[in-house]
C-alpha cells in the first residue's frame, strides 16, 4: 500500500497530505533537492504536467516516489511507497489526483500573498479516498484478467466520447465495478441501460428541469430520442446530471478550450448549484463535451455503491472534462478560419512588442534555436547547450511575457537564471576554512590534527603542474606549510619541473615571509599511489599543513590509465580531488569530465574543477558549462594567466555575463 501522498507547493508548503505509514520528511526534502534544485537525474528536463509514469521515479533506499508537477501553479504531487511493492496504479493515482486537484483548487493556488488553500465543505480527502479505492480495486481486477469486461466497457464508452478520449483508467474501473451488472450482457446501448435506475433518474429530472430547459442541444437531442415514455424520462436524466458537469465545462470552453485551469470560479459540488449560473454555464458551454459527460453518467448510474458513486461520478466528470478539454485544445489549435488566424497573427505581432503574449512552441522554437547557436558559439558542448535550451523551453512554454518584454528578452532572463542555478555550488567553497578545520580542529571535536590533502588530475597538457604551483603559491601567502608530492612518475622531466616550481616558490615565500614548501619525490617508475601514500604519511609526521599531489596526465578514454586512479584515491585519501580542464577544449570536455568523475570508484567523485587557460578564450568560456553540466561538480578556480598569482575564485556572475554577452 501507499505510505504517503503529499501535495506540495514549490514554495515548500504542504497543501494536503495523507499518511498511512510515517515516513521521514527528509525523504521528500531530498527528493525535492535532488530532482528540482540540483537536477541530479540529469537525463531530461522537468516537464510540466507530465504524467507520473513518464517522470523518472525517485528511489530512496527503501522508498519509491512517483511524482508529477504543474509548473504554472507550482504544485508537486508526490506518492511515496515501499520499493518492495509493485504498485502499478500509483502513476494513475498521481495523475488523477493532479487533475482533480487542479480543477477544484487550481484557482486558489494562484492567489498572491497566501499559502492557505481552503478545501471548503467538500473535503479533498473524500475525493482521494474514492480514487484510491477505485484504482486499487480496478488494478486488482485487471490483474486477474477478464478480457470481456475491458472489451465491453470500452465498447460502451467509445462511441460516446471523442476517439482520442478513451480514458483507460475509467474504462477499466467501470468495467470492474459493473462487472456483475453489465458484464454478461451484450454491449450496452445507452437506452438499454437507462431503465435500470428509473427512480433515480426521475428524481434528478425534477431538479434539473430549469437547466435542461436552456440547453438547447440537449433538448434537441431529447426530442429526437423521445420515442417511448420510459425512454424520455430516462433521457432527461443525463440532461439533469449534466447540470453540474456543464458548469465545469462552461468555463473550460469559454476560452477557446485553451485554459481549463484558468477559471476563477470556486466550485462547490456538494451544494446545489443555483439555476442562474447554471443557465449561464449551459448557454456558453455548448459543445460535444456535454454529450460526452452525459453519456459517462449513464454508465455510472448502474454502479452498486450509492454514496461512493455520487462522488465517483463527480470525479469522473472532472477527469473526463479535463481530458475532453485537452483534446479539444489540441484540435482547436488547427482550426480558426482565415479571419481568426489573421486576427491572431496581428494580435500576436502586437503582443510581441507590448508583451503579455502567451508563449507557444512555435514562438519559442525559433528563438531557442538562436540561443542554442549562441551557446555553441561560446564553446558550450552541443549536448549541454541542447539540454539547457530544452530546459528553458519547457519552463517558458505557456508563460505570459511581461509588459513590454519581447520573447528574446524573456528567454535571456530564463537562460540566465538557468545558468546561474547550474553553476552555483550547493555548498560554499572556502578552501582556507576547510584547511583550517582539518589542520587545526577545534578542541571540542575529537578529531586529531592531520594534513589536508589535495590531488590534481587531468588530461595531458592541461596545466596540472602549473595550477598546482599556483594553488601552492596561494597557500604560501596564507602561511601554510605545504608539501608537494611528485606523483607523476611516468613522464620524463615531470619531477624536475616540479622541483623548479618548488625552488621558485621557496624563493618567493622567503622574500614575502610566507609559509614553507618542500617537494616529496621518489623518482620515476614507482607506483604513483604508493608515492602519494608515503607523502601523506611523511607530511603527517613532519607537521605539514597541506599536501598537494601532482599526478600523471592521462587520456580519459584509456581504461588502463584511468583504472589506476581508483587505487590512487584509496591510498592517498585526498580531501579534495580537483580536475584541471582546459577552457580551450570543446565538445570533448563532457566526456573528459564524465570519465574522470567516474574513475575514482563508486564512493568517490571529483570535488571541483580548475578551468585553466581562461585568458586565451575571451568570452568563450562555454567549457565550464559543459563540465558542470556533465558532472554536477562545481568549478572552484579559474586560471587567468601565466603567473603564480593568476588564479581566481570562480564567480558565477562573471561566467554568466560572459556566456550571455553578445559580441
Amino acid at each position, binding site marked *: 500500500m501507499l505510505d504517503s501522498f503529499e501535495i506540495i507547493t514549490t514554495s515548500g508548503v504542504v497543501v494536503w497530505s495523507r499518511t498511512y505509514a510515517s515516513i521521514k520528511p527528509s525523504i*521528500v526534502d531530498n527528493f525535492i533537492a535532488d530532482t528540482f534544485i540540483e537536477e541530479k537525474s540529469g537525463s531530461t528536463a522537468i516537464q510540466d504536467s507530465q504524467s507520473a509514469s513518464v517522470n523518472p521515479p525517485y528511489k530512496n533506499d527503501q522508498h519509491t516516489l512517483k511524482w508529477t508537477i504543474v509548473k504554472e501553479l507550482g504544485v508537486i504531487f508526490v506518492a511515496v511507497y515501499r520499493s518492495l511493492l509493485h504498485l502499478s496504479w500509483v502513476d494513475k493515482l498521481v495523475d488523477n489526483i493532479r487533475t482533480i486537484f487542479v480543477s477544484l483548487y487550481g484557482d486558489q493556488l494562484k492567489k498572491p500573498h497566501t499559502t492557505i488553500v481552503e478545501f471548503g465543505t467538500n473535503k479533498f480527502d473524500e475525493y482521494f479516498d474514492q480514487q484510491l479505492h477505485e484504482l486499487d480495486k480496478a488494478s486488482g481486477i485487471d490483474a486477474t484478467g477478464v478480457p470481456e469486461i475491458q472489451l465491453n466497457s470500452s465498447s460502451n464508452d467509445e462511441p460516446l466520447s471523442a476517439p482520442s478520449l478513451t480514458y483507460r483508467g475509467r474504462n477499466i474501473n467501470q468495467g470492474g465495478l459493473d462487472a456483475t451488472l453489465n458484464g454478461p450482457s451484450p454491449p450496452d446501448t445507452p437506452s438499454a441501460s437507462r431503465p435500470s435506475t428509473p427512480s433515480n433518474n426521475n428524481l434528478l429530472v425534477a431538479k434539473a428541469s430549469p437547466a435542461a430547459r436552456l440547453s438547447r442541444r440537449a433538448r434537441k437531442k431529447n426530442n429526437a430520442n423521445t420515442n417511448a415514455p420510459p425512454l424520455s424520462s430516462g433521457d432527461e436524466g443525463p440532461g439533469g446530471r449534466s447540470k453540474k458537469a456543464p458548469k465545469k465545462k462552461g468555463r473550460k470552453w469559454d476560452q477557446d478550450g485553451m485554459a481549463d485551469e484558468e477559471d476563477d470560479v470556486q466550485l462547490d459540488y456538494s451544494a446545489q448549484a443555483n439555476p442562474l449560473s447554471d443557465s449561464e454555464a449551459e448557454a456558453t458551454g455548448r459543445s460535444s463535451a456535454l454529450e460526452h459527460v452525459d453519456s459517462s453518467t449513464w454508465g455510472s448510474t448502474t454502479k452498486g455503491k450509492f454514496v461512493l458513486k455520487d462522488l465517483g461520478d463527480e470525479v469522473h466528470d472532472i477527469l473526463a472534462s479535463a481530458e475532453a478539454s485537452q483534446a479539444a485544445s489540441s484540435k482547436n489549435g488547427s482550426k480558426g478560419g482565415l479571419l481568426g488566424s489573421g486576427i491572431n497573427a496581428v494580435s500576436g505581432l502586437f503582443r510581441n512588442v507590448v508583451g503579455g503574449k502567451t508563449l507557444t512552441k512555435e514562438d519559442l522554437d525559433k528563438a531557442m534555436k538562436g540561443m542554442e547557436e549562441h551557446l555553441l558559439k561560446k564553446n558550450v558542448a552541443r549536448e549541454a547547450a541542447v539540454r539547457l535550451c530544452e530546459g528553458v523551453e519547457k519552463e517558458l512554454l505557456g508563460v505570459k511575457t511581461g509588459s513590454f518584454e519581447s520573447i528574446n528578452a524573456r528567454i535571456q532572463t530564463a537562460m540566465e537564471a538557468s545558468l546561474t542555478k547550474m553553476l*552555483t555550488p*550547493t555548498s560554499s567553497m572556502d578552501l582556507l576554512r576547510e584547511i583550517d578545520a582539518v589542520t587545526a580542529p577545534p578542541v571540542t571535536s575529537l578529531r586529531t590534527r592531520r594534513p589536508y590533502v589535495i590531488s590534481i588530475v587531468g588530461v595531458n597538457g592541461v596545466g596540472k603542474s602549473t595550477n598546482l604551483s599556483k594553488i601552492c603559491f596561494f597557500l604560501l601567502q596564507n602561511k601554510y606549510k605545504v608539501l608537494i608530492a611528485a606523483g607523476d612518475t611516468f613522464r620524463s622531466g615531470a619531477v624536475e619541473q616540479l622541483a623548479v616550481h618548488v625552488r621558485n616558490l621557496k624563493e618567493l615565500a622567503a622574500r614575502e615571509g610566507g609559509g614553507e614548501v618542500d617537494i616529496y619525490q621518489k623518482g620515476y617508475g614507482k607506483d604513483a599511489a604508493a608515492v602519494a601514500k608515503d607523502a601523506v604519511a611523511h607530511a603527517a609526521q613532519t607537521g605539514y599543513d597541506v599536501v598537494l599531489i601532482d599526478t600523471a596526465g592521462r587520456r580519459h578514454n584509456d581504461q588502463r590509465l584511468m583504472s589506476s586512479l581508483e587505487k590512487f584515491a584509496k591510498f592517498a585519501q585526498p580531501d579534495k580531488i580537483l580536475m584541471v580542464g582546459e577552457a580551450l577544449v570543446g565538445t570533448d570536455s563532457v566526456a573528459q569530465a564524465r570519465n574522470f568523475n567516474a574513475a575514482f570508484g563508486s564512493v568517490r567523485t571529483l570535488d571541483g574543477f580548475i578551468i585553466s587557460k581562461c585568458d586565451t578564450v575571451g568570452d568563450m568560456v562555454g567549457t565550464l558549462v559543459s563540465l558542470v553540466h556533465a558532472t554536477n561538480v562545481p568549478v572552484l578556480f579559474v586560471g587567468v594567466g601565466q603567473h603564480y598569482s593568476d588564479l581566481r575564485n570562480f564567480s558565477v556572475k562573471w561566467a554568466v555575463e560572459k556566456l550571455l554577452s553578445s559580441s
Partner: protein
Amino acid sequence: MPSPTFWSLVESSLTPSYTLAIIAIVLILGGPIILHFILSNSTSYIIHPQVALVGPDGVGKTSLMTLFERGDSPSQTHTSQKAHSVELNASTDSSSKYSYKNHEDTTGTHTKFLLIDTPGHGKLRNVAMERLNRCERLKAIVFMVDAAALGEPESLAPTASYLYDILLFLQKRVSDKSNNKKNNTPVPVLIAANKVDLFTALPSTLVKTNLEAELSRIRSSRSKGLLDSGVGTDDVGSEEQDAWLGEYGSEKFSFKQMQEFEIDVDVLPGNVTGDGPGAEKWWWWIAQRI
C-alpha cells in the same frame, strides 16, 4: 411642461456664449484630471512594507511563515524552491500586539506587511539575494538559524557564511552612496534562533558568540583569499572590492560593529513547533520595525 424647457435647453446649449465656452473648457481640461485622480485612487500603488525571511535550508523559515499566517499551528513543510510572500497584519498598540494570533483582533491600528519567505538551499541563494534586491520597502530581515544544530561546525560554517553575505549586502547597500534613493535606509536584522525547544539547542547568547566567532574567521579568510574571476588587477583596492564587514581592521567581529552602518542585529530565541518560548518574541520584534 417638459418639452419646451427641453428644447430651449438644447437650443441654449448650442448657441455660442461665454458661459458655455467656460463650461466646455473646464470639462475638457478638468475631465482627464478628475479621471486620473479617480483611477489612481482606486488602484493601490501602495507598496506594503516588506520583511524578508532568510537563512539556510531546514531551519524552519516556511514553517514560521505558515505559523504567522495561520495563527494556530504551522503547516507541514518541505524544501522551498521559490520565494513566497504572505500578507500579514501587525500592530504596536492593539490588545494582542505581542501575538501573531491577531486575525480577529479589531483594536488598535494594524499595519499590513509582506513576509517574504526565501528558499534556503545553497543553489538557490542567488534567488533569495535577488529577491532582497528587488524589495522596495524592505523594513527588516529575519535571519533564521537552527540553534540545535549550530553547535556543530558542519552547520555553523555554512550558516555563518550565508549571514556574512547578507550582512555584507546590507552594509554595501547603506554605504553605497551612488544610489541616492530610499534604498539605503538601514535595515535591522533579527537572528531568530529557532528550535530552542530541542535538547541540543544552544542558548541565544551562545548562538551569538558562535556566529560572531565564525564570522570573524570567515572575514579573515576572505580577506586572504583569492580574487574573484573577472576582477582585473587594476580593480584591486577599489571601493567595490573592498569588502570588509564591520569595523575595518578590527580583529574580532561583533554584531555591534554593524551599528557603524546603522544596522542593528538582535538575537532572539524561539521555536515554531513544540513547547518553548514560541514565536511571539519574533513577532513583536517585527511589529516594532514596520
